[in-house]
């Protein structure tokens, strides 16, 4: 390992990225519940208040609309607030401020007011938690013009993407797969040049079927591809990374080659990202498709009690099942 490179978790990558961003620009603020002394319930902001002070790492009253609404005001004053929503299921009290204000103020003001706000949301399931702690709210935000929505899937992306999101002059909903926070380590080279934020990436090349995933399901898709390769099937895996805008280039390239696609996400299938991807792929690759785009996701039920969550969440077997189905079309 070189001087610049080290093995880090996603939690560490995000923490380091936040620190970098705060060092680079004194206008960057961190706000949220328990982000100060505690460093957040997931410790993503660990140590930041100690080093940057209470004026820049702000523990807020327990009110999500208040957090996002005051962040809007700070952005108007020239700050770049990075808001932490404690868990996905608690973003909804702030929903009005997000979709009616954060998303629309740039448009409303004809571009005179910028909204460089990042709203970090630990999302997805699989951590054995109680209700409201395992939601996947991305489709609702992606449906809202004016917001940009991204999801990281690994430590290195976490490090770069959070910095890029903070540097972005548009509001970014930044989704972090919470079950990955402390799961795997990856080598980070801080001297590398990251890809642009709003791009998708082929993370495993293949010929037979295209798997589209983001956030927590990238790992699932990679495992499925690995397993399938044992059976002589070659799956291409794309980490979407950006959900709004979608980066359709790599997706269409891939599907034009494979003729088959399966989208995998934890969000409910009905009106989830898979619906949009299926619609766009079909429209743009109509004559290339050997089978309809299939979707594997959370069922159209509320998130279940945790002792059954692994059945609810899309897993390797359900992905492979969909791969089988698309291949037998």
């Amino acid at each position, binding site marked *: 390992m070189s001087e610049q490179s080290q093995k880090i978790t996603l939690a560490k990558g995000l923490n380091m990225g936040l620190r970098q961003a705060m060092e680079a620009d004194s206008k960057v603020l961190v706000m949220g519940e328990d982000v100060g002394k505690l460093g957040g319930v997931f410790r993503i902001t660990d140590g930041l208040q100690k080093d940057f002070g209470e004026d820049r790492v702000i523990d807020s009253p327990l009110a999500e609309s208040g957090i996002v609404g005051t962040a809007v005001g700070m*952005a108007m004053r020239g700050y770049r607030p990075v808001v932490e929503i404690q868990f996905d299921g608690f973003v909804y009290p702030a929903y*009005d401020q997000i979709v009616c204000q954060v998303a629309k103020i740039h448009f409303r003001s004809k571009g005179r007011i910028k909204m460089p706000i990042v709203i970090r949301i630990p999302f997805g399931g699989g951590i054995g938690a109680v209700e409201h702690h395992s939601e996947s709210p991305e489709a609702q935000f992606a449906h809202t013009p004016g917001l940009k929505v991204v999801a990281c899937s690994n430590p290195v992306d976490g490090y770069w993407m959070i910095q890029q999101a903070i540097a972005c002059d*548009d509001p970014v909903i930044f989704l972090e797969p919470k079950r990955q926070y402390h799961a795997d380590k990856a080598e980070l080279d801080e001297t590398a040049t990251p890809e642009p934020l709003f791009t998708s990436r082929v993370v495993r090349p293949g010929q037979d079927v295209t798997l589209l995933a983001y956030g927590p399901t990238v790992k699932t898709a990679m495992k499925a591809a690995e397993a399938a390769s044992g059976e002589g099937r070659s799956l291409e895996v794309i980490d979407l990374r950006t959900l709004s805008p979608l980066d359709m280039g790599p997706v269409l390239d891939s599907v034009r080659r494979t003729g088959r696609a399966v989208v995998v996400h934890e969000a409910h299938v009905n009106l989830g990202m898979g619906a949009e991807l299926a619609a766009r792929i079909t429209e743009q690759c109509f004559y290339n498709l050997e089978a309809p785009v299939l979707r594997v996701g959370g069922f159209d039920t509320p998130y279940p009690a945790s002792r059954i969550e692994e059945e609810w969440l899309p897993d390797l077997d359900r992905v492979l099942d969909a791969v089988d189905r698309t291949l037998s079309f």
Partner: protein
Amino acid sequence: MSDPTDSAAAPAPPQTGSGFGPDLAEVFGPSQQDGGPELIQLLTPEGERVHHPDFDMEFTPEQLRGFYRDMVMVRRIDTESTALQRHGELGIWAQLLGQEAAQVGAGRALRPQDFVFPTYREHGVAWCRGLDPLKLLGLFRGVDHGDWDPEEYNFGLYTIVIGAQTLHATGYAMGMQRDGAVGTGDPERDAAVIAHFGDGASSQGDVNEAFIFAASYNAPVVFFCQNNQWAISEPIERQTRIPLYQRALGFGFPGVRVDGNDVLATYAVTQAALQRARDGQGPTFVEAYTYRMGAHTTTDDPTRYRLSGDVESWKLKDPISRVEAYLRRNGLADSAFFGEVAGEADDLGARLRDGVKALPDPRPLDIFDAVYDETTDELREQHDEFAAYLDSFEGSHA
């Protein structure tokens, strides 16, 4: 296992704890009716100057004439815009008739470095900020959502979602704190924010959260509530059963009720509240007790829900006539002055009538502008497709 209900303490005889304080009747008394004894006033409806132990102030004749002129001009903006709506030039207009003093009093108390977060009805404050009233009409005509630069006037865009702007105001004020623009003692530097909202808005979670954040961080923000007694058809009693300004006390900062039809009192109280904020003393709640003399907007029909008698009784408290009476009685303005102001108002009216028609309509492709600071390929594609589609009509659309 034993049954947990076994150990229930036997119910004691009911007790109607006097410890909870005074009776409902006492607390929720009639102070709603005429503003009550807590109403701060410096100029009576009859135009007599009265004094107040805490908020008294001297005004120069020039200031008084200035208030008068402001209010006349603001009223003209309002009546002219109402007429423009009737003539189909505006889609809708949010009237402020009767609220001129509240808005001019608050607006004139501001320093240039202060920042205003308005609702959709703050035409009078906009006037005081030097905003060309024509700029206000675009939103109501439907050509834009507000076409002024908030930073140029330190006057934010109109906000339609009730109460949302009170949180923006609080956050902006927190930004001022971080900029070192509070409590330095330098009058050119110290700044405050004023957040406007209505009596109805006081029921929104956002507004109450704004109180909490402002108190928690001691943010330099004045919560300026125009209690015009109505939220569309709902009377103030639906939102609160005690005088509204007292809401602030529960959040740990001061609240006062000022006669919102008295421009002098509103000015005095608001500037004191702003100064507290600039000095780093934190938030204040100012309830400007006034009345919506007109309809909620031009699409509303208040005869369905309120008595004309109420409106009549408020006419006697008109904000403009009391200043006029005071000026005349004390010989502070002559008829030349009044004629001049009337003429100015007529000029403004004419300018609005002409100007509104000249407001440029948006063009179809403008739809795609400014959605993002850095637009996306997706949106560029939608733009281009739509452009091609429009072209296919041989210029009939675009």
